[in-house]
């Protein structure tokens, strides 16, 4: 399971990196979003996959899965949600003002 997860995480990072290196802003945002999923999966895998029952009251299991990585991911997802939303709005605004979503063409001279 861990091996599969590692391959998946690597795939996410590869796709995300590729998208970030493209020129269109929307693709860059998608790339960051995909990398963030890779990172969240990484945290989950690092905490140990399927080590026991859910850490909730009322279950009779002896071993419990470590809840901390899940709490970390929840927080990280919320933060990522906020930054992605902000990045989207920002890029949209940049597109409107500058008139292009191509990062090559965005480069202007310094004296504006």
């Amino acid at each position, binding site marked *: 399971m861990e091996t599969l997860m590692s391959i998946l995480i690597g795939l996410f990072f590869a796709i995300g990196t590729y998208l970030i290196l493209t020129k269109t802003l929307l693709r860059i945002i998608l790339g*960051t979003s995909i990398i963030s999923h890779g*990172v969240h999966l990484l945290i989950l*895998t*690092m905490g140990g996959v399927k080590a026991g029952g859910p850490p909730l009251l009322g279950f009779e299991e002896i071993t419990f899965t470590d809840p901390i990585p899940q709490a970390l991911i929840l*927080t990280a997802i919320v*933060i990522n949600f906020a930054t992605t939303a*902000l990045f989207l709005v920002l890029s949209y605004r*940049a597109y409107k003002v500058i008139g292009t979503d191509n990062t090559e063409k965005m480069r202007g001279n310094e004296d504006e």
Partner: protein
Amino acid sequence: MNNLLILPVVIPLVMGLLMVLFRKNITLQKIVSAASITATGAVAVLLMIQNDQDGIQTLQIGGWQAPFGITYAADMFSSLLLTTTSIVALSCLLFAFKTIGEERESYYFYPVFLFLITGVNGSFLTGDLFHLFVCFEVMLISSYVLLSLGGTRKQLRESVKYVLINLISSFLFLVGVAYIYAVVGTLNLADLSVKVAEAGQGGMLTAISLVFLIVFSLKAGLLLFFWLPGSYSAPPTAIAAVFAGLLTKVGMYAIFRLFTLVFYHEPQITHLLIGVLGAVTMVLGAIGAVAYGDIKKILTYNVIIGVGFIMAGLASMSIAGMTGSVFYLIHDMIIKALIFLIGGTIISLTGTSKLEDMSGLIRTHPYLGWMFFTAALALAGIPPLSGFLGKVFITQGTFEAEYYWLGGIGLLTSLLVLYSIMKIFMNAFWGETYLSEEMEKGSTKGIMVPIALLTGLAVLLGVGAEGISSYVNLAAEGLMNPELYIKAVFGE
């Protein structure tokens, strides 16, 4: 348990939220924001006094004991930085009152400013690696908003770059967190310190420490500063001054905390690397500062030099080097905000940031000119002023650790700093006065107060260094003795 610790985070947060509800009432927002930052400063001073008397203060949030819950811990280092943060933030806020403009004010400038301070204070106080990430994000999201607020072309272009770079460094931060959790199984800094010391800092942990070094270098501008000149010259002066004074310092604080508390077992790898990075940063920053003829560019490259120099103190890993770093960090926060404020004022007066297009301001603005002169001397570390002691101690520290090259580069760049900043002074203030007061694009009305406040502080910090030296020594001792921090966190 000391609930005082949470106040520097909660006061700006709650006040900022309340201000969102009163969007229309700008006067109220001004009063409330200034009052809440003053209150934060008062709490920070109280914490300093408590640190002086009773040692490190801790708070286990929600009553969850140390390795399980989130711990807040304030040692002298944190408290000193908190106090300085409040002073710098207050000055920039006073500057913003006059200069920021109604449009930005109505789009939540003051609340976002307070959220930024929330994040900065939280980062200084937290004793938990993941909570550090959260506080970083609070700070960064606020800075994204502040950077793009107003929406000019340049601002938007720079914010897109800035957001992307910081997003990637945040991902790396999380990757580091995941790895260290897998290896050590805890995220509480004190607990990490214990576990790493027990297990020995092997190759794996050293590699993880380098991941964190990359992350915080990106935020602090240590070598990875390519984003910094652009983003710090885009926003209005008050915001740029806050960024220069606070944002990079938070990254530096994180490097200090991690590499003195947790990863201090392999100094010949990690700390040497930090020293090399610092040296390269200083050299590149100095080249930039000397080469450009644009005030904003020169000032941002000076920020970069400061980062490299402070890291030299950490690299030496000696009590003298740490004392110097703490001194210089406090000085740097104040002085960088100050020169950014003065530089921004010069630009708003002349309407240009090109040095060749300005001259002779000293006749129409003598006070501004002499304060800039004082700031320039302090920045270069001329004796009675604030930068001097820090420079002396850091250089001493590097020599003690036998990193002569590092100390040498530090001293050499000081000269170049002096040259670059004097270049501004000579060009902007000396020479023929052809800009009469009627022709000026802006005015200095009302913004001299924060500038004078910071200048006075820079002088006071140098002349009255005796007064705070006991605090600084305590901070440096705390940094050199991680067991004090561990004992305080697990003590209750």
